[in-house]
């Protein structure tokens, strides 16, 4: 059937369009190459911490250049995240012993506030490249990396361990080498979760990119050429029109990356779906259609296709993707013992050093203080999630149940979710200053600017997945409004809502570091909270306070996930799953 359907597109009819597609694809590729070379050159300018500029020029003509520099950072971080994912997830899934260590570690890394990473690592990065802006550049990229990598790694790990058993057996019986197994089975099998999680994390990455381009660390102001630093400088100067301009550029950039990169990628990734049936609503992409119509990708495919065989052979020494059937239990047990003792010693040593460090610098009284501040921030997160739930659940359900509305609204919400909320901070801050509202309350609004969309986004997805026959049955039973909500809609969207809630709460904790202390045109507002605490500790370079703040925040996030969200999640799986 399908072969007949594709026949006309390969025939003469499609030829003329093909030539045009070739030109577009070729020009696009050339322009991209030039841009990367040009931008990479700018990153290595001479630089030293003492004379480094605390701000950048806010000439609007420079904005495209700044935007491109920011974009390059995002993509470098994405590439690093993918590489990290491949290595880490594969090690965790395939090596029996490392799994026991790598997985819990990933769980903890995921709950450490991302800007906390930045606070801890930035001085190290600057020291790594003396006399060059590369150190700062690396710190910024690292911040984006930390916002993307953990999610993607978890997703890929999940796909590796839930690989269909028959595919695993078939690959082992065919005696694929480790290299072949990875590229022909593991990566394709994990492609869809990898791409989708990459796209969502990339959206979140904008937030941390802009936060990491203009920083005050160790009593020093740093600014990297980039759109985030542009907004920071314009805010400090109190130039709202330039902030609005940057917001416009940012919207163009978010939408552009979505159209030119993520849409085609998700549409292309559909071919890696494991189920043998086509999914009902496969994503489509104009860009991908253009690429497919062009001859250039196919030509590149032939060229690189020739390399597959030699590379396969070169990688053969890595061995077969197979484990011996018989192992000596005594040796195995001995290895386990040595390994666990080594790990435990390492953890103990780290703990002792940390306790010693805190005792020397801040003292343990500080931990109690930080715990109290954490409680205040926690209260903000609770209010935020509660209000966002009350507001967005009805809206999300309405959108999700109207196919026409959701087709229009879904991309808008997606852009809203990936638009860096900190770009809007100056506007809100200006209002707060004008009205005299305390940041202790206004902080909730700032935190919610980025976080709330996850709830809306997931509720829409959940509502649109409610089976039509259930809705018809509810209509047929003439369920009154209240019953309709209680017996149909709320249970049906529950698990999507929980997913959204976890993400929103995590995002709010992360945002607190930049939302609890804001400045506009020389005036700085500070709220009481753990986020402001970490932020202040970073700008004064107080290592003890940074450590305590970040550790306490991780503790809160891990604790809440374990005690609250995971239980809700388990309940959703057990009672309210539609399958």
């Amino acid at each position, binding site marked *: *059937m*399908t*072969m007949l359907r594709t026949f006309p597109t390969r025939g003469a009819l499609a030829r003329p369009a093909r030539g045009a597609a070739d030109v577009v694809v070729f020009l696009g590729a050339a322009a991209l190459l030039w841009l990367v070379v040009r931008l990479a050159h700018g990153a290595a300018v001479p630089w030293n911490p003492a004379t480094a500029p605390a701000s950048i020029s806010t000439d609007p003509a420079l904005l495209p250049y700044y935007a491109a520099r920011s974009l390059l950072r995002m993509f470098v971080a994405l590439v690093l995240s993918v590489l990290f994912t491949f290595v880490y997830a594969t090690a965790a899934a395939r090596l029996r012993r490392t799994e026991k260590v790598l997985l819990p570690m990933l769980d903890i890394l995921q709950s450490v506030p991302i800007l906390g990473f930045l606070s801890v690592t930035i001085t190290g990065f600057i020291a790594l490249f003396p006399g060059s802006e590369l150190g700062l550049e690396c710190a910024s990229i690292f911040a984006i990396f930390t916002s993307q990598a953990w999610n993607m790694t978890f997703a890929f790990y999940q796909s590796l361990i839930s690989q*269909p058993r*028959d*595919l695993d*057996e*078939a690959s*082992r*019986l*065919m*005696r*694929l*080498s480790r290299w*072949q197994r990875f590229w*022909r*089975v593991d990566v*394709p099998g994990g*492609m869809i979760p990898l791409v989708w999680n990459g796209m969502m994390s990339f959206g979140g990455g904008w937030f941390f990119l802009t936060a990491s381009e203009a920083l005050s660390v160790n009593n020093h102001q740093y600014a990297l050429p980039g759109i985030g630093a542009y907004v920071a400088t314009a805010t400090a100067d109190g130039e709202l029109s330039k902030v609005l301009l940057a917001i416009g550029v940012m919207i163009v950039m978010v939408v552009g990356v979505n159209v030119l990169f993520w849409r085609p990628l998700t549409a292309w990734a559909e*071919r*890696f*779906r*494991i*189920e*043998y*049936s*086509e999914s009902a609503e496969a994503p489509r992409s104009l860009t991908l259609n253009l690429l497919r119509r062009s001859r250039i990708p196919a030509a590149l495919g032939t060229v690189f296709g020739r390399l597959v*065989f030699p590379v*396969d*052979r070169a990688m*053969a020494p890595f061995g*077969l993707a*197979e*484990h*011996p*059937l*018989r192992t000596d239990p005594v040796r195995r047990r001995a290895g386990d013992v040595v390994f666990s003792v080594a790990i435990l010693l390492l953890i103990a040593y780290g703990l002792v050093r940390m306790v010693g460090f805190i005792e020397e610098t801040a003292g343990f009284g500080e931990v109690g203080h930080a715990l109290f501040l954490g409680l205040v921030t926690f209260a903000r997160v609770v209010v935020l999630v509660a209000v966002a739930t009350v507001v967005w659940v009805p809206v999300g359900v309405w959108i999700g149940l109207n196919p026409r509305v959701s087709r229009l609204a879904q991309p808008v919400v997606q852009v809203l979710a990936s638009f860096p909320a900190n770009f809007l901070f100056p506007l809100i801050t200006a209002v707060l200053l004008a009205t005299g509202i305390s940041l202790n309350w206004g902080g909730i609004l700032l935190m919610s600017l980025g976080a709330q969309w996850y709830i809306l986004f997931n509720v829409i997805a959940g509502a649109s997945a409610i089976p039509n026959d259930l809705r018809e049955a509810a209509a047929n039973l003439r369920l009154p409004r209240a019953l309709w909500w209680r017996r149909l809609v709320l249970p049906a969207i529950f698990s999507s809502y929980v997913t959204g809630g976890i993400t929103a709460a995590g995002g709010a904790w992360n945002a607190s570091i930049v939302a609890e202390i804001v400045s506009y045109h020389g005036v700085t507002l500070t709220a009481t909270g753990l986020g402001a605490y970490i932020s202040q500790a970073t700008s004064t370079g107080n290592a003890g306070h940074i450590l305590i703040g970040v550790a306490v925040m991780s503790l809160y996030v891990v604790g809440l996930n374990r005690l609250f969200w995971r239980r809700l999640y388990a309940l959703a799986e*057990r*009672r309210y799953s539609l399958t």
Partner: protein
Amino acid sequence: MTTTRTLGAGELLVGVENVSKSFPGAAGDELRVLDDINLELRAGEIVALLGRSGSGKSTLLRTIAGLIAPTSGTVRYRGTVLNGANPGTAMVFQSFALMPWLTVQDNVELGLAARGVPPTQRRDQALAAIDLIGLDGFESAYPKELSGGMRQRVGFARALVLEPDLLLMDEPFSALDVLTAENLRTELMSLWAGERFPTKAICIVTHNIEEAVLLADRVVVLGANPGHIRAEVPVALARPRDRHAPTFATLVDQLYDILTGREPDLQVPEPTEATPTARPLPPASVGGLAGLVEIIYARGGRVDLPDIAADLNFEIDDLLPLVDAAAMLDLLLVTGADLTLTPTGKAFTTANIQTSKQIFAEQARHRAPLVRTICRALAASADGNLRAGFFLDLLRRGFSTDDAQQQLDTAIDWGRYAELFDYDTDTDQITADPGAGLHHGKVA
């Protein structure tokens, strides 16, 4: 060539010697799946491993393939003990196991790529295999564009292109519809009879008795709990085989007899006496059970098992649990391959729904060991309430986690239908039904 095949006296390819396999149970004990299996697979023969679910036939096939290690005993390929995937075998899977992201041709080439065959030679070999198996014109299609039968052809081409000594097949036709399966089976047999067939022997796992008789030179019947070889039945019929020949039917009846019959040297306690682990509940729903009894009643109270399986188009894995359950509850009597309705069974199927429920309750309460155990425990409890986890813990001493859960699910299904007790998922509580009179405590 064909003569040596039918004689089955070819060179020894795979030797299975005293193989046992245990999996660690949920309660820390060992659950034995295979017990002391000895089997030889020789060039020129087709061997069918026939058994019901739980007889470990797939596990046995996977030890032969070198995919899982036996707990004790050895598997040798041409004299060498396996320590990894068996290099002389290729497998055809029930679920096809094709890489969905590779085209038909790339799927077929994958095994050759693993052997380091250069691309041009690879393509030629793959095209030859695709041609042999009748997939011409589908080279560039993706598996999801193909029907089940075509997908399984790709599965065959992928295995055959490697020219393995031994072709392993794990219920290769059971995911296909009846006509497609028959078509593929016939084609496979005509290939096997020809000179071009690239493998020396075939070992097929099946739970379809007719399929076993149709294909095999030797049928190895496996018994369950733990898996062991019950019988080896040579099939000396000439190929191509005729399903309607009397000798064919005799063999099918003989195999049914072996599969449903009680093993002489195995002590199985009566259901009224047995513990829940000694007589597990067959995984049968009340609806299926009642349907079977009704059909037998409609056909005059006596049917032949192969006939009814063929009429209903049921695999034995679907049918035998129903038969076992009905026999356990004394609703019907199994003699060889014959099913006879008992007086209780007749009463059960002719009564109105309330009376029939009462009959079922009476039978289940006394003759289904796990249901009986639950009823007794509820009667002895303080308030007619018990945690389901309590029974699960007990069952884990004799079953794997999944099997224990299945036992409990079946018991709850039966108990609910019989209105003996009820189960609340949220609280994980099993509660005695007040109407059943199990419990005379505080509950009214």
